[in-house]
Each structure stands twice: as C-alpha cells, then as structure tokens.
C-alpha cells in the first residue's frame, strides 16, 4: 500500500498531507490536519454532519477519498468565522438557540453557507429541502430554519 501525497487548499491556505488510499477526506481533515469541526455521524452520506464545500460544491467529506482532494479547494467550518468575528449564520444560530448537543451544527452551518452563497434569498421551503441531508436529532429544525432565514436577510442588508 502506497501512501498518497495530497496538496490541496483548505480554507484559503495551502495544505499538504499523506493519506492511505482508502482514507476518506473526513478522516484526513480530522486526523491529519486537526480540523475536527466536521463530524462523522453516519459515515454513509445520510446525516450531513461532515458537510464541507469542495470547489464550490457542498459534499459529504465521508463520501470522498482524501486522495481525490488533490488540487481541490476545500472549505470547512473552521474557515467560516473571520478571526473572532462570527459569520452571520453562526451568530444567528446562537441567537436562535438553533442547537442543543451541537454535533450537527458545523454541517448545518457549512450547508447553509453553501445555500446562501448560491441563493441569497431562499424561501423557507427551499431552505428546508436544501437541508434535507442534514439531520438534527435535538432541535426539530424549526430554530435552525429561523436562524438561516434571519441570517439570509442580514446578509442581503450587508450586500446592499
């Protein structure tokens, strides 16, 4: 078995690591790069707790091999805040108490960031469908949706 050398851009910075051929991107992010924000919930692409953005597309890091990341641009939850200034989505999640145990939260935030990057003014229905692949066993989703809608409104204000 040969370890593959992978060079990628992670949250805007160059990152290099070695990976075994069967290692997932999720395991490489967590174990090689120490970025433990993305979580393993199911490991089969059902729960969305490992959501990351690769070359602008929202994906499950558990369903991608680390070796596939060569040359790719990866965004994780760790890159979302600007230093100590939280992203509006992060702030609204806190204000709405849109989390309890927090395990799904990094995935929810990355997924909703991808939504608002693509569609700054989503309807509630669009937001719910977009998040169908992000499971939360605590909140019942309502507070999450309210947080996203408020963050979207806030971001639209900033843009104007």
């Amino acid at each position: 078995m040969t370890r593959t050398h992978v060079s990628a851009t992670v949250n805007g910075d160059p990152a290099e690591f070695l990976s075994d051929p069967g290692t997932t991107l999720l395991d490489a992010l967590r174990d090689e790069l120490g970025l433990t924000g993305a979580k393993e919930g199911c490991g089969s692409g059902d729960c969305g707790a490992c959501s990351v953005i690769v070359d602008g597309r929202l994906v499950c890091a558990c369903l991608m091999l680390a070796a596939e990341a060569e040359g790719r641009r990866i965004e994780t939850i760790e890159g979302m805040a600007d230093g100590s200034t939280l992203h509006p989505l992060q702030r609204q999640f806190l204000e709405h108490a849109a989390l309890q145990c927090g395990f799904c939260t990094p995935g929810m935030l990355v997924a909703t960031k991808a939504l608002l990057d693509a569609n700054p003014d989503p309807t509630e229905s669009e937001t719910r469908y977009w998040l169908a692949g992000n499971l939360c066993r605590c909140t019942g989703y309502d507070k999450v949706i309210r947080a996203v809608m408020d963050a979207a409104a806030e971001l639209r204000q900033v843009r104007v």
Partner: protein
Amino acid sequence: MTQLDYVAPTSADEAAAALAAGGGAARALAGGTDLLVQLRSRRLKPGLIVDLKRIPGAIGVREENGDFVVGAATPGAVIGEHEALAKAWPGVVEAARLIGSTQIQGRASMAGNLCNASPAADSAPALIAARAICVIVGPAGRRAAPAEAIATGPGRTSLALGEFVFEIRLPARPARSADAYLRFIPRTEMDIAVVGAGVNLTLDGDGAVVDARVALGAVGPTVIVAEAAAAALIGGRLDEATLARLDEAARAACRPIGDKRGTAEYRTKIAGVLARRAAVIAYARAKARAGEDA
C-alpha cells in the same frame, strides 16, 4: 490487511488498462456515493480504485449534433444547472436530481447510478425511456450499449473486465418531444423509490402520440421497458381510455418483490398510477415545446 491502491488516470484508455490490470478487485470511482458506502461497510474489498474524474470529459455536459453527452462522473448538481439539457430532457434531469440530498447531488452521477445496478435507481428508468446510449471504454476499445443493457440484476452489470461507462448520450429527437419521471416514496425527500416511472413521448403536429417509451423502476430485478404500455399511448391524445390502457399494460409488465418498502401488489398498483401521471406530464411538456417551436 487488504491492500488497496488509488489511481487517477488522465485518459480513458489508461483507466481501462488500470481497471483490467486490477482484475476483479478493481473498481471505477465516479461520485463515490455508492462505492464509498460499500467500502466502509466492507461489503466490497477492492484492491484498486480507479478515479475517473481526472479524465477530460468525465465531468460536464456538451451538445454534439443535437445529442447531449453527459460525462460519466457529472454530478446531479451540474446536470441540473445545464439549462439546455433541462429543457430538452426534463424527465432525465428531474430523475437525476431526485437522487439523495444536496450533498449527494454534489457528487452522485447518472453513470454511477446505472452501474451500481440498484433496481430502484432513479435515473435508470428515465435514461432508458430516453433511449440513452452508454459509451463504454474497455481494454478492447470503445463500444456503445443502450442504457437498459448495463444492469443485469441487482448489483450486477454486463460490463466486462476493465470496462467502464465513460459517457451517456441522449440522442437528438424530433421537436414536440418530452419526457417525465416520477417516483413514489413514503415521504417527501431522501428516500429510495418504491416505484419509479419514466415516460418519453413524441407528438405529431396534431398532438397525437407518434412515439412513446415507458420504463418502470423497482418493479423487477432490473428496469422494465413496458412495450405494451408504450404501444397503448401511440396514436392517442391521452384521453381517459388511453390512460386506462396504459395503466393496465404497465401493471401487467411488473414483476416486483414485496419488501418493507411495499408489497408486490402495492408496487404493481402504483406503477400503473405513476405511468399515467408521468405520461400526462410528458404530454403537456411536449405540447408546450411544440408551441414554443411553432
């Protein structure tokens, strides 16, 4: 520990050579949304993974003499963003877009959906109704096969050692044509089809159906091309009598299993209903397109 290697060739011929050299333990990787799950559950213990995504043309949609060519690893999200494809083949696109969550849509491909050979694969009935052609690359060169020739049973394909689907071609068809795909699941999102139905129609200038194809998913070990159901549509304008004949012929074509998602009787009944509804949608779309072209 099982030895596993990963390669990402940059040409289709190299990929075929690598797959052939890897023998039965080699697997082609497109979006990986099935392969990685199988890898993790240890249902599959491949010795070599051949990633197709670095091959030029593997990701993307292009038009060639009226045909649409969809690269093997093109994810659902990219398929959905291609406006000309969505206009020409709304049924194929809606089927591809039904697969999984937003995250899965960022990776999952139609070629992977076909080659995973699940009887409930959403894009398969739509592609088969569309008469899609798979361009298969292998050690002996290229060959073309209709989409229905890929799956031979649950989890089994007709691909020979070293072969992989490289492109899916949707053939040019006359104006006044359209398709539709519907599936039934017990909730609104994120589920596996209990039944799927793809219908592809072409109308004449007076609105009568002159060509039809009906493909049913999850009601047999592979997608069923319901020829009698298609024949029931020919010459008609989808009045109630025509739809009743379609419904009956679609049900007659089913040979489903019963399982936790639906009994055989239920699946059969739903297949008739979905064939009807998909035909009505395809017909309305074809008429709308005829209006635009006129």
